[in-house]
């Protein structure tokens, strides 16, 4: 014969278990919904008043080490800093999407800020303007891209993949904002030696696409054909 107090205790424990199970189920559902919302890569949204314009994104492909232009219609903010940030954000959204040709996690939130400052006279990028960009008002600009630490920490490690990421970002900026002739990278506001153990982030990259202009640093292009010895000298 089971004592009465044990029966009561059993029922109370059973009820408590059911309540706790229900609470845990709700908490799990709540957390699941929160994670799902976090996974949705937030599109680079400009203010609704901003008109959509054609933007050229230089998208990398790991398969053949190429960077190919991809024209998209994007609502871009008028502020140059915000515009540069939106362009790079959209580029990283493409890399973070499933089935990307150059998979890199992170997305648009990996670009914390982009600062545009005039290129000091006498530096290689100061002579990098050409054509319409040179004729427009204002001189060449240095873009300082501040990346999130999580982006660099989770970037795939490898010489080619890191080089392609840097190259595509530099070329995207220059393709849409020709006055940007130099690009530097920070991670969480601080200099960092490499992106993910290979490609240097300590140098200033010339954003002028794949041309050696006699400056200190040339663009880091990748091709499937050998370059001619001494090219660009």
């Amino acid at each position: 014969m089971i004592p009465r107090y044990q029966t009561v205790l059993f029922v109370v424990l059973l009820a408590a278990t059911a309540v706790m199970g229900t609470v845990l189920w709700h908490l799990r559902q709540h957390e699941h919904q929160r994670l799902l919302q976090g996974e949705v890569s937030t599109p680079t949204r400009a203010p609704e008043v901003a008109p959509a314009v054609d933007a050229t994104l230089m998208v990398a492909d790991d398969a053949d080490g190429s960077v190919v232009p991809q024209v998209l219609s994007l609502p871009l903010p008028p502020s140059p800093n915000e515009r540069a940030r939106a362009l790079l954000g959209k580029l990283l959204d493409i890399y973070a999407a499933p089935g990307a040709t150059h998979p890199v996690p992170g997305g648009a939130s990996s670009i914390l800020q982009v600062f545009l400052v005039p290129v000091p006279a006498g530096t290689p990028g100061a002579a990098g303007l050409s054509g319409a960009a040179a004729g427009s008002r204002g001189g060449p600009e240095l873009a300082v891209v501040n990346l999130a630490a999580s982006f660099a920490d989770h970037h795939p490690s490898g010489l080619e993949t890191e080089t392609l990421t840097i190259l595509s970002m530099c070329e995207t900026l220059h393709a849409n904002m020709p006055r940007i002739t130099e690009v530097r990278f920070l991670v969480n506001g601080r200099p960092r030696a490499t992106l993910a153990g290979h490609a240097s982030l300590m140098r200033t990259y010339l954003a002028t696409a794949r041309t050696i202009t006699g400056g200190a640093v040339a663009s880091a292009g990748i091709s499937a054909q050998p370059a001619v010895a001494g090219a660009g000298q």
Partner: protein
Amino acid sequence: MVSGRGNAAAGTTLSLALFTARARRCLAVLPLSFAFLAPPAARAQAPPAPAYHFVVVLNPAHGGTDFGANLDGQPEKDYTLAFSTRLRSLLEARGISVVTTRQSDVRLTATQRAEIANHAEAQACLTLHASETGVGVHLFTSSLAPASPTLFEPWKTAQAAWITHSVALEGVLYSALQHAEIPVALGRTGLPAIDSMTCPAVAVEIAPDGAAAGSGSASGSLADPAYQAKVAAVLADALLEWRSEGPQL
């Protein structure tokens, strides 16, 4: 039968050979005499090579606490060291002197690696990497803009005066790999270790073979010994061809 003129010619040849041999011995001793000038890292790991020898520097990337990329469970540092050992044996079998920046699991800075390479006065410096992304072999030279050689090169951009030679070496490696039907891509990148090297310097990144990437089989993967042997043999033959093209310094 040897005529008197023949004897005289043979004597002259012998004298020249003896003189050449003595000169070679003297030249071989010279670098040793100045070994005390080398930094500690270079003294410990890279005995100076005679200047007239064809020397190849192999620089396996990463090491120690720097693991590099994760190659399906294997750290990149182990892969590059093993590949360096394999390539070294192939090169030495072909009569090529080899200096390696590291032969064990130690961490070296980019400066130490460049010091070892520069003291070796090498005719080719290969920095070895490996990656799971991409296919085939990726060849990189420094993205520094070419510059004319000067008496004193800035340490961080010393490679700028060697870019032309580096691109030429890259072309020889590219041709050999393509001839062996290994997918190959070329590029320029910012890599501190090669930016300070005063030799024709190329970074070689080995990725899985293109054909195997699609099939999902172990053949042609990074861990496949046959694939590693194939790439190493092609690189060794390419360096032999590079040597046959004459002094590059």
